Structure formats: C-alpha cells, structure tokens
C-alpha cells in the first residue's frame, strides 16, 4: 500500500483500536447480567453423562447431590430415590367420565404432590367441562369457575397419556425424554435443553415448561421425591406427569387417584390379566382421545351407562 501516508495509517489504526476496545467494553457490559445467573449445578452435575449411561452407583450419588442441594437452598431434608421399572409391569390409567364431577381435586393433589410452582398454580391435569352430547373439545372449557357438577355438563380431566407411540419422545433432539419399560414417559430435568419441541409435538397439551424457577415454600415441599418425577425442577426445562413413579413403582397409587372423591380413577398393571384396569378395558365402553393420530395412549376414558 504505497499511497497511504504512514501518519494517516496510524491515526486510523488507533481509531479502529479505540472503536474495538469500546465495542468489547460495551459487550462485557451487555452480558453482565449473566453473572447473577445461578443454574444451581455443580461442575460434576454439568458434565454428567446421559441418564441411561449412568451406573447405579452414579445414579445414587446424583440423588444424594439433589438432596444436598435441597438442604442448601431450602434448608430441609428430602429423600430422592430413583426407583426402576419392574420387568413385566406396564402401567395404565382409566378414567370414568360417568362419575367424574369436575371438582379438580386430582389437579390440586398433583399440584402438591409434584412440588409445582405455587404462583402459577401449575398442575399436570387440566379438567375440561364438556357439553353433554359431544366429545368435541372445541366446546370444552378448562377455566370454569362455579359449583360443580353443573347441569348439562360432564367433566373430562386430561393429563399425559403415556402414549405407546409417543410423538414427544421422537422429536426430542437430545433424548432428554423417553418411554421407560413400564410405559411411563419421563423427562430428565438435568439433560433437557429446553427447546420445547416436545411441547409442540404432544397432541394432548400434557407437557409443561419451567418458564421460571418454580418456587415452593420450604414448609410445603413434598420431601418424598423421585429423580425422574417430583423433585423440584430447575428453570428452563420441560416436565410432565410421571404417573407419580416415585409412588407407583413402590406399590402405591398416584396422588390424583387417591384424591378423587368419586372413585372415577382406575390405575394398574395392563400386563396383569387380573388387574382392575384390565377388567375395565374388557367390560366398559372405553375410548381414547384422538385415536386417529396413532399415538396409542395408555390412558383410557370410559362411561358406565
């Protein structure tokens, strides 16, 4: 560059350097809020491998870590377990629409059992008030606020259907959500990247995203926790109904079923011919939602009369 005078060159270079420094400084200022960010994860947790690659010992260690975390952040003792599916067991759920009264106690029980965010009153169950004579959800209303049951209405609670051909698990780019051997579709809250593709894919509005850090007062936290189920979730990840696997895998019933005052809910082992749910499937008028989509839910609805 023969024509440029050295002096002009230097002045320009100095100006450019000043501009670059200013830009870098402004950039640092712009990302400064990130310093307040506490993902509440140790380095070990951050570098952890996928759930399915963990040895039982590593899994236990991780559960202890979650417990220690609860102690640190909430000052309470919780018990975090990672119960595994029992070979040969396949869970299913059936709901009797003839007797459900729409009291939403199941949704409320879910809210407490699963340590949902209190402010948003989150729950995995949405109860729709439906017009008698139609199954079309377009005429349903989940925001009703009046004494139930109302005349001319029936009620349809909807939660995760634990589909056998689940669209949500297919679309996940990182296998953060999958179907376990006993049929339960789970999310690993520490693997999910929060892309919400699964939420778009689910045809039953069964998934919930943590748009903020869920907050539960320490005194209200349910200390009986499962690693893949109701432990307090981090911000920015997906969650969903887990058939209360921390209960059901240990022989207890889901919280929503226990809370139901009418006995509309039937939970059990689809693989066991003697189970109540098998009796319902064999003897009642049973249907599944959006059968045409081929999702093959393991959550069934039925009518008595």
């Amino acid at each position, binding site marked *: 560059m*023969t*024509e440029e005078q050295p002096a002009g060159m230097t002045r*320009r270079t100095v100006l*450019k350097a000043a*501009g670059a420094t200013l*830009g870098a400084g*402004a*950039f640092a*200022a*712009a990302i*400064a*809020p*990130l310093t*307040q*960010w506490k*993902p509440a994860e140790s380095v070990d947790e*951050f570098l952890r491998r*996928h759930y399915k690659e963990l040895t039982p010992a590593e899994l236990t260690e991780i559960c202890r870590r979650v417990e220690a975390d609860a102690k640190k952040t909430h000052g309470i003792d919780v018990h975090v377990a990672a119960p595994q599916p029992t070979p040969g067991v396949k869970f299913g759920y059936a709901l009797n629409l003839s007797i459900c009264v729409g009291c939403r106690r199941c949704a409320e029980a879910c809210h407490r059992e699963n340590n949902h965010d209190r402010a948003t009153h989150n729950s995995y169950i*949405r109860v*729709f008030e439906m017009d008698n004579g139609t199954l*079309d*959800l*377009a005429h349903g209303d*989940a925001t009703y606020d009046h004494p139930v049951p109302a005349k001319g209405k029936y009620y349809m609670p*909807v939660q995760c259907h634990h589909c056998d051909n689940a*669209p949500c698990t*297919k*679309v*996940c*780019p*990182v*296998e*953060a959500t999958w179907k376990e051997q006993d049929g339960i579709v789970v999310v690993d809250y520490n*693997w*999910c*990247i*929060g*892309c*919400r*593709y699964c*939420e*778009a*894919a*689910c*045809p*039953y*509005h069964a*998934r*919930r*995203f*943590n*748009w*903020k850090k869920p907050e539960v007062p320490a005194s209200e936290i349910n200390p009986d926790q499962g690693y893949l189920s109701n432990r307090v979730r*981090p*911000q*920015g*990840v997906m969650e969903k109904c887990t058939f209360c696997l921390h209960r059901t895998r240990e022989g207890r019933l889901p919280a929503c079923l226990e809370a139901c005052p009418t006995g509309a809910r039937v939970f059990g082992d689809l693989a066991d011919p003697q189970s109540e749910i098998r009796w319902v499937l064999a003897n009642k008028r049973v249907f599944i939602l959006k059968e045409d*989509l*081929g*999702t093959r839910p393991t959550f069934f609805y039925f009518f008595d009369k």
Partner: protein
Amino acid sequence: MPNLISRPGPIAFLRQAIHHATDGGPLFYAWMTLLTCVALVGVNAWANQVVHGMQVTGMGDHVSWGLYISNFTFFVGVAAAAVMMVIPAYLYHDHEMHDSVIVGELLAIAAIVVCLLSVTVDLGRPDRFWHMMPPLGRFNWPISMLTWDVIVLNGYLALNLWICAYLLWNRWRGTAPSPRLYLPFVFLSIVWAVSIHTVTAFLYCGLGGRPFWNTALLAPRFLASAFVAGPALIIVILLALQRLGGYPFGDRPIALLLRIVRITALINLFMLGVECFTALYAGSTHASSLRYLLFGAHGHHGLVPWIWSAIALNVVAAALFLWPGLLRRPGLLAAACLMTFVGIWIEKGMGLVIPGFIPSTLHEMVEYSPTATEWKITLGVVAGGALIYTLLLKTALPLISGWTPGLSVGHAAMDAQHRRLFEQLNALVAAVRSRRGAAEVGRTLDFLDAYVREHFADEERLMSESGYAGLDDHRRMHAGFVTELAAVHAALSAPDADRQAIAERLHHAMRDWLLHHIRVDDRAYASHLATRG
C-alpha cells in the same frame, strides 16, 4: 522460466481482509455503530432472559414457540434462496453472474448465522447446548427432525464458507481456482439449499397433533416463499450497492432476480390460496387455526391485522413485479422488494408458527404477542447477521473488482499504477451506469484515457531500458486497449448511446482484458526485470 514473483500467503490475505473489512467512510462507520448498538441491546436482553427465565417472553404452555422460532423459519428461507444466484451462474455457465454469486453466498452465510442464533436464544438451557453434540451428548438422530435440521444447517454453513473462502483466496492471489475443489461443492450447495428448507418444513408438518402444520404443501410453500423473499432481499442489496458505489456488477443479476421473483411471488400466492380453500371449504375443525388467523375466533383477533397486511403487501408487490417498467425505476423496485420481504416475514414467521398453537391441542384459545424482550433479542440477532454480512461484503467486493496483491508484478511503481487503473476503470463504469451527465462521464473517460497512455508509456520505457525481447508484442497489446477505449468514447458520444451496454462492455471486456494482461503479459516482463536484477 521459473515464476520469480512470490505469491502472498494466508497471513497477508487475512491482514488485507481485516483492513478492507474495517475501512470505510463516515456512512460505513455510522452503519456499523448502529448495528453494533442494536446487537448489544439484544445481547443484554438475552442475558436477562437467561437469568430470569423465559417468563420474560410472551410465550407460555399454550403458545410455546414465538417470535424467535418464527424468525428462524423465515431466515432459513433467505439462506436457501442464495442458490437463486448460483444456479444460472454455474448450471448455465452464465459468466456474468459469476461475480455476483458471491453476494448471494455471503448472504447465505449471514442468514445461517441468524438462524443458529435464533434457535439458541429460544433455548431454555443454552448452557446445555453441548448435549446435542455427539459424542459428548446424545444426538437423537435420525428420528428427531431437529437433529436433521442441525446437520443440514451447519453443513450448509460449512459449504458456503468453503466456496466463498476458496474463491476469494484465489482471486486475491491471482490464481485460477481449481474446478475440482469448488464446483462439486457448488452443485452440492444447490441441492443442500433445498434440503435446509425442506427439513425445516418437516419440523412442523411432521407433527400430527397440529393440523395447521400437518400438510404436505408446507415444504413446497416454504420453498416458494423463500424464493420470493431471498431474491427480493438480494435485489435490494444490489441496488443499495449500486447507490453506494463499490458495485462491480452489471444490471444483469438484478434483471435475472426480478424475472425469478415475478414467478415465485405468484406461485407463493397461489399456494396460500390453495391452502385456504382446502381447509375452509371443507369446514372441518382442522380449519380452526386458519380461521383464527384470517378472521379471528371466539373474540380473539391478534393475528388478523398482521396476516392481512402481509397478504396486501405480497399482492401489491406481485403486481408491481409484473410491470415491465419496474427495472428502470430502481426506487420503486426496491420498495416492491421490501414490501414482499416484510410480507413474507409475517406470513411465514408469525403467520405460520403462531396459529399452529391457536387453538391449542385441547382447543383452548390462548393468544400470543411478543414482549419487548423478544423484539430486542430478535432485532439484535438480525443486526448481528447484518453486521457479519457487511463485513463479509466489505472484504469480498474489493477483491472482486479491484487490484489485489495477487496481481503484483513485483515492481512497486507499476503495481501502484495498476491499482490506479482499476480504480479509474471502476469509476468510469459507475459513472456510465449511474446515468450521470455526459460532461461528468466525459471527464472520467478523459482522465482514464490520459492515465492509460501515461502508464503504458512508463511500462514500455521500462521494457526497452532493460532490453525486453517481447516489447513489440506488448506494445501492440497496449495499442489495442487504447483503440478500444477510443471506440467506447465514440459510442458514448453517439446521441442514442445505449449506456447500459457500454457499461457492460467496459466492465467485462476491458476489465477482464486488464486482469488477463497483468496476470500473463505483465508478469512476463516483470520476470524478465527480476532476472536482470
């Protein structure tokens, strides 16, 4: 004879690239400062979103994707449409398009960056990004369409980076690019461009639970709209470059792109019509999203003004494209292109993504509108892309049109004169093309004429002093150029001069002559000078 002129290396290339990229007039610095500020506001908004969670957006469990993913979808189309320049240039060996291809390919690079950033800012846990990267993470391939999108987008980025870098590097060094090293990639990138938009459509239409997206027409529609928005944007860019100077191409690329959007704009409108008819005539509940979008439903009308503005913009632009006089009215052409660009941004961003969630899968009506944070982040992402694009263009354009060290003949004074020659020739092309007054064009031409003679005389003196054997041949070549220049002069003075044709002639015949002459003939005498020491 061994070539004694050493070829400059990659470090020098990078240094010059940085020099070109960061050097400019006040307008350039103002533009860069503006983009930097907008980008930084976006970065800041994003940092806050990471800290406080996605609650700062207007999204929720009902409408769980919003502005970010809308913008992503749109810019995948822009990236894909870069091939609109590549196809004629390489498939049909249209040499005039070759240079301008770089404008499109660089745009593809910047657009892909916008796409990747748009997806990143949509993640709830960007810190876990690596979970997607095999072998560390778990890549749910081939079953998850999102993993396909990751592959095709990054592949497309790599392809275009390679092609641009390789061609520019060769141009800078003054070497001929080896077709084996770039042509296969060019053809691959054409197929690949179609794939990125098809896969992005599959992200949506593969979801059986969302009838609004679950249509086989989605991928063709995506492509059609991309081939409107992409070329429209490139036309605007070319027009802007023409205004700002530094535009080394003829009018051909713009005319060609206009021919393309003329057709694709109509195809796009046609497909929208087909979609509407199919859904609305049958009147099934599957049409509820579309009905919400077009007319509102159950007292919710959030998207109605948006979509009708989009349709109006696209219809008016399509009509303007059909008007034959448009090419001669650059201002109106730019306006039409911008109209359809915005129209398609709405139609296929907000107009496609949002209604998929309204009504929800359980038929609840929950509306969405983006928050200030989302707008800031989105504008920041686009500004970031524009920043990158500006820098890329600033680096590439001088390499295409001007003197580069690769043309060095190893003689400082002659190099400086060659450099001036290119500048003068480009100035003349610009003057002729800009329809400036005959007096001004005449001045530029006279100046060039005088400079050429002076330079040729200097060169010939150098040759004769050193006893160069090829002097007579060389003289003849110089005389040929001077005659050609005189012919251009005469043509320009004719009352009915076709100035566009003359500009093309100057641009291609004369500049290409100069390039070849310096590369081959001047190097020969330079080698001779060098051996004599």
